[in-house]
């Protein structure tokens, strides 16, 4: 298989974040994408390696209520949280 385990996990996390934001409305997704690029020159998939960027952006945009978004992302990735990179991603965005 061409796809590596790391690429699969990165895509899985990226899709979970995108779906969560999209469920809250396309403007929410677009705002987060814009803010990630403006502040860190990065895109949603890059947050797999830099979860702190996503955490900061969600906090800056939505204040205390960002924890609700984090909870939905956590729930969506719960069954994969036994895997170290995903556990690490979830841990950092929820700090």
């Amino acid at each position: 298989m061409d796809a590596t385990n790391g690429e699969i996990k990165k895509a899985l996390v990226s899709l979970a974040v995108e779906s969560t934001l999209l469920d809250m409305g396309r403007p929410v997704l677009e705002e987060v994408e814009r803010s990630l690029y403006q502040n860190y020159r990065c895109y949603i998939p890059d947050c797999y390696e830099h979860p702190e960027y996503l955490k900061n952006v969600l906090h800056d945009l939505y204040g205390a209520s960002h924890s609700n978004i984090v909870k939905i992302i956590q729930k969506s990735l719960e069954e994969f949280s036994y895997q170290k990179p995903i556990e690490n991603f979830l841990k950092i965005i929820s700090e």
Partner: protein
Amino acid sequence: MKDIIKKSKDYEDDWVPIIDKSLTRLILRAFGDDDKEKILRVLAKKPDMISSVLEICKIPKTSGYRKINSLIDDGLLLPVGLGRGVDGKKITQYVSAFENLQIEIVKNKVVVKVQIHKAVEDLPDSKIKDLANVTVN
């Protein structure tokens, strides 16, 4: 899944991009599970009986059969023929629907591309249904 198998013939390089978001999610969630990924990778090489695959992947039978059944229900494992068990009994052989998987990440876009397994491409729809009725062992 049948739609994707049919579509694969339209692509010269055999790589079919998965457009549907829910199917993309289903594929990534299957490959994102360590045990399911091992099963799919082993059965992407050649068809085999479930008991052999679980042995090769070193997955305990209880959880292994649960994961195999989930992959069959999702259409990611397909029955392609019959093999012989140690007692000579006919047992269904399964293969991964995809021989290969590619992930392209460009900016905010994640695109999953698959190559349909040759053993599945050549199998008529009716044959798949007939074989699917054989007990999983």
